[in-house]
Structures are given as C-alpha cells and as structure tokens.
C-alpha cells in the first residue's frame, strides 16, 4: 500500500534519524511512502500566534496538493499531524474561513475537497499491519526491555487520533515487539515544546518531570512518537542533571527505531548512531545491573 508522506521540517532537519527509521520500517512492513512534492511548512503551533487565517491556508495548500495524488497522508510529526487535522476540521466547520481559503487556493490553481485522510504512522501500523501482523514479523524480540511509551500532547488532543484509535491500543505494539510494557502515567503530558529553548527554566522542569517519572517506573527507554518530543527529552538530560542533581539519563528512541530493532534491521538503517543518548542491544542487562541495588 502507498501513502503520501508529509515529512514536515523536523524530519529534514534534526530528526533525520526518525525519517531514516520510518522509511526502513515501512519498507520492511511492505508499506510505501511517497513524499509530497513541494510541500510547505504546516506552520506548527507557532504561526497561528501571529496570523490566524493564513495559518489555515498553509495546511490547506498541503491538503489540496495531497488530494490530487489520491492516497492518504502520513504525518510522522505530531505537530504536523495535529495541524493538518485541525485545518481539515476547521475548514469543514467554519464556512467563512473555508470561503477565504478556497479563494486563496484558487489564486494558485488549487482546489480542496475536504475528503483526504490524515494519519500518523502509528495508526497506519496498527490498522494496516496490526498487532498480530507485527508480531509475526519480529525477528529479534526485545526481551527484558522495559519500554515506556510516551505519546506527548498533540496526538491525543481534540483534532487528533483518528476514529477507533486509542493510546491504549497503541500500547499493545510494545508487547508485540517482545518488550515489557511500562505503565507510564504521564504518557500524554506535554513536554513543553519550544519552551526548552525560550523559557528554559520552565521547559527543563517539564522535561524533568517526564524523565523522573520514567526513572521511577524503572523504564529502560522512553519511546516517543513525535520528533520534537524526541529531541526535547534527550537533548537536555545533561542540563537537567546539573540543574536538579538527579541523573535521569535514559535513551529516547523514536518508535520506528524500536520497531526496526525488533524487526532485525541494521543500526545504520535505523539511524541509531544519531541518537544523543545511545540505545544499544545490551541496554536491558546494563540498566538492570545499575538499578537493582539502588532499588533494594
């Protein structure tokens, strides 16, 4: 099956390892990604704090172009995913806005119907491969790994999560890989987004709360589904250690990297060497050795 791939700016920038692993895993699962040509930035959660109607036009241009290609959109960044879904939702609900956007799209020779579906790769894997299907393809089960799934905020919020999907359903992908599912209570709590760069004291605190909880839950790795969460959680671990005097070092893989490891794909294809906190096969034993005495 083929999908229209909307990478978003992150996937071409600091999250190239996420993109590498996404391509590798989709390939291994027999799914095809075709990048949307000439896509533009969706505006993220930032553009709309300066201009409102224009922000919806940015999403609409991408949706209109993807509609022409026919297949469903896959957006691996939860901000892009949420923004595209929000655009679709608002254009359907606010006729005034729709009229303005239609006019602007017509000026550049585009037309938006409003029929295209936007999906996160998690949803694709769950729907088109399924837990059983994934389990059947696992070659190197992640035995002994305590994996805490962290979804972040935007995938679980109003415009997001397509019908019939729940975070609990996504959780089931973890045991399918042979790993132990850690009950991570803060799985949908915000990581602070760009606050780690703008209001550092607050941003670091939000990240620290998540990492600390993961440590308490005795997770070996915290798996993310959003490239910005991925960067936020791993890039500031050193500063957080210095600021709060608590060592919360933990690998933060993107979910397709973890799936790819279980599928037996090479480390290079998954971009594992690009992680700031290394993720290795012997992770579980090492982590056990380091933490068991402290826990006792």
């Amino acid at each position, binding site marked *: 099956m083929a999908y229209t791939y909307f990478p978003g*700016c*992150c996937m*071409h*920038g*600091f*999250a*190239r*390892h996420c993109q590498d692993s996404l391509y590798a895993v989709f390939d291994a699962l027999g799914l095809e990604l075709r990048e949307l040509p*000439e*896509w*533009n*930035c969706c*505006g*993220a*959660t*930032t*553009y*709309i*704090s*300066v*201009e*409102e*109607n*224009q922000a919806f*036009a*940015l999403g609409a*241009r991408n949706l209109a172009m993807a509609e022409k290609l026919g297949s469903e959109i896959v957006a691996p960044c939860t901000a892009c995913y*949420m923004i595209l879904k929000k655009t679709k939702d*608002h254009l359907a*609900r*606010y006729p005034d*806005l729709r009229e*303005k*956007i239609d*006019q*602007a*799209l017509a*000026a*550049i020779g585009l037309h938006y119907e409003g029929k295209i579906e936007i999906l996160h790769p998690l949803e694709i894997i769950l729907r088109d491969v399924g837990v059983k299907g994934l389990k059947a393809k696992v070659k190197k089960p992640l035995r002994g790994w305590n994996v805490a799934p962290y979804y972040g*905020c*935007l995938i679980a*919020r*109003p415009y997001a999560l397509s019908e019939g999907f729940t975070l609990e359903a996504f959780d089931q992908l973890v045991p399918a890989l042979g790993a132990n599912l850690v009950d991570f209570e803060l799985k949908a*709590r*915000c990581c*602070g*987004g*760009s*606050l780690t*760069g*703008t*209001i550092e004291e*607050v941003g670091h605190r*939000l990240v620290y*709360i998540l990492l600390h909880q993961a440590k308490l839950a005795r997770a070996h790795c915290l798996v993310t589904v959003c490239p910005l969460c991925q960067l936020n959680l791993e*890039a500031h671990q050193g500063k957080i250690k210095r600021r709060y005097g608590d060592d919360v070092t933990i690998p933060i893989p993107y979910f397709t990297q973890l799936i790819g490891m279980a599928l037996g794909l090479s480390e290079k294809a998954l971009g594992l*060497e*690009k*992680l*700031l906190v290394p993720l290795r096969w012997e992770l579980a034993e090492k982590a056990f050795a380091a933490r068991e005495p402290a826990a006792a």
Partner: protein
Amino acid sequence: MAHPTFFKKVKYEKELERDLAAEIIATPGGEKILSCLQCGTCGSACPLSVYMDYTPRKLIGMVREGFKEEVVTSFAIWLCASCYECTVRCPSGIGVTEVMYALKRIAIREGIYPRHFPVPVLAKEFLKMLKGSGRTNEFWLVLRVLLKTAPMKLLTSWPLGLRLWQRGRMCLGSTRIPKAANEDLRRMLEVIEASTGGPLKSPLPVTVGAQPSGGDLKKAA
C-alpha cells in the same frame, strides 16, 4: 512582566475595554467564552498553570470583563505551549488554546511584549522564515532568535549544536522549496491578507457583562 499582586487595581466602567471579548468571540474556538463556568478545570489540567501569573480561568474571566491591559501584558499567554489539555477538558466546550493564540496575536499586533522576550520573537522569526523559503530550518531559526534575544546564551547552547552536527542532525544548508512553489505560497498568503481586510476582524454585535462590576461600587473609595 506585571505580577498581579503589585498591579491589582480597581477599574472604573469606562476603563474597561469591552471590544476585547467581542474579538475573542469572533475567533474560531472562542465563541463560547460567555458560557465559561469559571470552574478552573483548564487551570488544573494545564501543566504550565503553576508558572502563570493568571491561570487560564482568570484570563477568560478578565477577557469577558474587559481587562485588556492585564490580559495582554500577562506572562501566562506566552507560557502556553498549546498542548490542548484545557481544550479537551473544558466542560463548556471552550477552545481555551485558541483563546490563548488570539491573545498572543493581539499582543503581537499591538506590539505589547518585552522586546527581548523570546516567545514572540520566535513566532515572528518563524513567520519570516516560512514566508521566505516555504519551510523552516531550526538551526537558523534558533540562531536568529538567540542573537535577537540573548546572544550570551550561545555560549551555553553551542555544545548541543555541536553534538547534533556531529551526528548529522543539523542542516546548515538551504531547505527552501522550489522558487515557483514559494511564489505560489506567498501569493496565497497575500490573497488571504487582502480578504481578511487587515488584522482586525469585524466585531460581532454582542453585549458583554452588562451588570455593574465591583469596580463601580468601590468608586468612592
């Protein structure tokens, strides 16, 4: 940033700016602010409300009553990371996050924010970059924002940049979309700007908070 305890004051009816509420009501997501129960669910769900000078509940109350200056100069609107937790929880179906966006837009439009405060500077630089090349490049974006707000921070931020660069996760080159596509994008945005007729939306004919507020009663004092 004004702290509420230092700047608390009584407002006379004529000092209240009622058109603020009308503007928020005209925003998609803000239509229902008049049905706000003031229950505080938004603030208790918000992961950032503990750092805010006014919680989202207070902000909505103040918007309804016309405390424009306090709302627009508050620290809280810039802290909102738009995680939508409040919007999901609100029993009255208010798009609290959209209200926060609208307040940020007003503050930026009217130039009411500290000059070196990074959040609005980031938003404006983001816009400039997007319009210029169709996509954003986080390296140049962060660099520009740091140079404009806190150049000294470059001294503490470069190690992270180096680590990302060593791992091939930094794109120093251009990420722009083809020229024709970028022209299209700009034309589309111009058409919208023209149809919006400037940044201000036509306010709806609504009357907000007609009953006399506590401020009038304390006028003599």
